[in-house]
């Protein structure tokens, strides 16, 4: 469009009272439009349409009412937004404090310790601070190595029936002796049992699985590494030697029966293990659970000074 036509359209819009075309131009163009307005100011002003006052009042009433409603709705939205933000903030603070303070045994006042930790705390002797045993791979490897050394030296700290040492206040985390035994007997795979429980996993088999005396494992699998032959199990009047370690899943279709509780020799003293016997037991072989594994024990020479606990009549 030529500048002559653009200017003519602008003047027509001024004369007829229409919206002038919005066209950007340079400074000289704007000065040209301002020149038009300056000339127009010499003429008497054009009166608005006769119904302009009525239209103005109606438009103001409508728009002011809309703005008030919009303001009220904006207030509601602001309230909802602030409430949601506060809720998210509280949740973030709660979760942050929950994970951070639980390591030190303290809990935020608005939270409660998990049931698992409470159970562990009750297992620890009174006066000992609550703590969480290490669950990562490096720590388990260290524990396994330590357990092997303990088994080789046949000496170690006293352990309780619960398989957990008394926690040393302020000292490093020390896994329970029962965990060390299970770690030493399980050469491969993850260590379950109490350590697994402390990590939030429930053992699939073993004494902590929560099942009754009857178990359902059987059929040892070839290729599993044998247990340390220096470890012996004393159950009733007899002494057993470890034959092999089998996976729990490989013992399916066989029902083992809990016959009592024995004590392992060559391991940290005081380690008591439940003893199972299968219906197809060969020559008095028994099984003891170790986390996700089972140890198959074969009778050795009649032992002297063995300690039988739990079910004296059930021993072989």
């Amino acid at each position, binding site marked *: 469009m030529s*500048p*002559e*036509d653009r*200017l*003519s359209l602008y*003047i*027509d*819009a*001024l*004369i007829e*009272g*229409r*919206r*002038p075309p919005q066209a*950007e*131009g*340079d*400074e*000289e163009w*704007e*000065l*040209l*439009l*301002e*020149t*038009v*307005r*300056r*000339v*127009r*100011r*010499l*003429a008497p*002003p*054009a009166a*608005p*349409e006769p119904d*302009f*006052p009525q239209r*103005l*009042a*109606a*438009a*103001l*009433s409508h*728009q*002011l009412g809309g*703005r008030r409603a919009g303001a009220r709705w904006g207030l509601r939205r602001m309230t909802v937004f602030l409430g949601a933000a506060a809720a998210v903030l509280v949740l973030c603070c709660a979760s942050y404090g929950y994970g951070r303070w639980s390591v030190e045994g303290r809990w935020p006042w608005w939270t409660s310790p998990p049931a698992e930790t409470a159970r562990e705390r009750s297992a620890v002797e009174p006066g000992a601070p609550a703590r969480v045993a290490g669950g990562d791979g490096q720590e388990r490897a260290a524990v396994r190595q330590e357990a092997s050394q303990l088994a080789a030296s046949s000496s170690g700290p006293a352990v309780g029936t619960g398989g957990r040492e008394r926690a040393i206040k302020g000292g490093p985390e020390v896994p329970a002796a029962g965990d060390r035994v299970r770690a030493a007997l399980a050469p491969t795979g993850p260590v379950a049992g109490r350590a697994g429980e402390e990590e939030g996993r429930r053992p699939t088999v073993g004494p902590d699985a929560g099942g009754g005396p009857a178990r359902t494992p059987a059929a040892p699998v070839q290729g599993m590494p044998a247990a340390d032959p220096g470890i012996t199990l004393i159950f009733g009047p007899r002494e057993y030697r470890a034959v092999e370690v089998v996976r729990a899943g490989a013992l399916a279709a066989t029902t083992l029966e809990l016959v009592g509780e024995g004590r392992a020799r060559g391991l940290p003293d005081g380690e008591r293990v439940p003893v199972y016997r299968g219906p197809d037991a060969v020559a008095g072989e028994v099984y003891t659970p170790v986390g996700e594994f089972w140890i198959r024990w074969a009778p050795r020479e009649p032992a002297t000074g063995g300690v039988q606990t739990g079910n004296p009549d059930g021993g072989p």
Partner: protein
Amino acid sequence: MEKELVTRARRGDRAALEELCRATWEPIYRFLYYLVQNRYEAEELTQETYLRALPMLDVLRVQDGAGFVGYLKQVARNLVRDRWRQRSRNAHLPAVDLACLASADSFEDPVAAAEAREEEERVRAALAGLAPDYRRVITLRLLEGWSVRETARAMDRSEGAVRVLQYRALVALRKALYPEKSSKGEGDLP
């Protein structure tokens, strides 16, 4: 009466609000029309002025109608200034001529009235210095409000010739009114 209207409107009385608008719209419209010289824009800006001013009634100490009209004019002046500045900023241009904002108050202020009279004399003198055809086409089109067709018939020219003549006449007038801002060689006489 307007004081009472202002008080009732401040309390949220819708009828009083409408009556207040009906009583005060005319000076605001004239003020805005003088600035924009367009009826549509003047009506639109009048409405926007009320929309900006009325929510402030609660925080203002306007006690009478005259004070309210003065406040409305101040709002209208700021509105026009913002619009012009925005347009200039978008086009990377300086503000056009905000001096006329002062002369727009010529209805009440004697100083502004004198400035308005000086402005009018300047424009009339510039018009008088134009060629007769230029002066006539500007008079017919801008001051009397004739259409291009009517102007072409009156001047015995084609509509296209009237548009060209009108453009050149206004370029010449711009040079006369803004001698320091006009470039040479544009809109020369044919």
